[in-house]
């Protein structure tokens, strides 16, 4: 588990994680927000359904994929939090909207 140093300042930005109200520190990435909130995991894999969480935090491992404001497969470590953002941990592969493809 990670803790916040006091000089980083308090989290003040309102958003939601899995539909639950949460506060984020302005300037943080989505992945840092999840880690700071005590979530080591952020998704399950499309291949085996095993749990994964952020690994590299520099944009190359793609293990921190989450759904942000309805868009799945977003790199949580590369996106800065915004007020009102809806962060949802994602399950398996992205569903295909069959109707929309017809």
């Amino acid at each position, binding site marked *: 588990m990670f803790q916040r*140093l006091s*000089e980083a300042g308090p989290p003040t930005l309102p958003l939601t994680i899995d539909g639950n109200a949460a506060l984020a520190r302005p*300037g943080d990435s989505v992945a840092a927000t999840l880690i700071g909130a005590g979530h080591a995991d952020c998704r399950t894999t499309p291949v085996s359904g095993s*749990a994964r969480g952020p*690994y590299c935090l520099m*944009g*190359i491992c793609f293990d921190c994929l989450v759904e942000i404001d309805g868009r799945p497969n977003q790199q949580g470590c590369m996106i800065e939090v915004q007020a009102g953002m809806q962060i949802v941990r994602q399950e398996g592969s992205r569903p295909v909207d069959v109707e929309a493809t017809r």
Partner: protein
Amino acid sequence: MSAVDALKPSFELAVIGAGPAGMAAAVAAAQRGVATILFDEQASPGGQIYRGVTTTPLRRRELLGDDYWHGQGLVDALLGCAADYAPRSIVWAVTRIGDGFELAVSRDGVAHLVRVAHLIVATGAQERPFPIPGWTLPGVMTVGAAQILLKTAGLVPGDGTVVAGSGPLLPLVLAQFAAAGVSVDAVLDTTPRDRRWRAAWRDVIGFATSPYLAKGVALLRRARAAGRVVRGVESLEAIGDHRIERVRYRAGGQTIELACTSLLLHQGVVPNINFANAIGCEQRWDEVQACFVPVVDAWGASSVPGVTLAGDGAGIAGARAAEAHGRIAALNAACAIGRIDPAQRAAAGAAAQADRARWLRGRRFLDVMYRPAPQYRIPVGDTVVCRCEEVTARQVLESVRLGCTGPNQMKSFLRCGMGPCQGRFCGLTVSELIAKERGSTPAEIGHYRLRFPIKPITLGELASLPQTEASEQAVVRLPK
């Protein structure tokens, strides 16, 4: 200049990556009057070594250390120079057009095309894969990732953190934790204790007269305050159901388990070669660094005309050597586009070459001493090799026994290396595994042939590219 909103359609030079090499290259090129743009994925400059140097909430200088704050000067020079700086911009494809290139760049979900005459690739380093059992469990992260959390968000490990691995970054991060008043439960040192320094005695003199000796001694002393160190760790395993619960290791003839909530892994850095590889730059296997390294000449010129490589992406040498390499690469670019001649390049580059040589001294010793042991590079059994496609060491070896001869063929056997990370966290492991099983060498087996786009993009981004009449005709066959 400060970050640009709109991209101009063409430049003489594009620099990829705003770490020390990329920033220094952009500044030096702009000073020579070269029309330059610097593209970087991150929202603020600095690369990973100076990550968040303009935004970090940790303003107490001693916390992140003087070497970190050195990056502020590079950023100031970048923002004060004539080069355009494009943050949050991913260059995902390069196409040769005549003597130059067309770059496909995505910013905020919209793709653009930019023409350039010359390219400096300064994509830096990434942490070496550390394929141990359980390394995909939530709660297992790289030491570099923990350092990014510290620099950018002031987040530090709490109770139940174990650090494991080897390499110069480890004492640096532990010293930063100690300065922040943080300690970890244990530091499991996997550095082999095989008296390899005897084989490296020639490099000892270089190291002893390098700037790294004094820095290293001071760091090791300060790092000691961050936690109990277990030396000679011979095996390592992360265990847990859905997330890490404990780490099992073997040292001094004993197998020990420690309960933990976080495991931070690190065993050195390797060049981030995906971009250079996809352009077609020749690369070689470096046996001491145990990684593939692009082939460059003394000025950073790659095997592909018009492409210069700079910094750790051209071979691991550290931030200060990368900075000098950036200045060298800029002169090579200026020479390649005819702004200066080779004699002027040699005269103007002498200082940067001497600076780089100074920061290269002693590196070989560090490479030898911290070369990870085989069991941490070449996994066995059900240990995951390819994190994206969840391919195990056993599967890789089985496909070799079925006749698979190399990493590219392995893709069609197992999809290994074909997930979103595009081989960044399995490429070295796969090449070494195949080489071992076939009684060959990674040099002979080679690395994945990587292809653009080097990062996943959406169809929407592709569709946002400007269309020509010919491209529309190719798809919808409009009546002429």
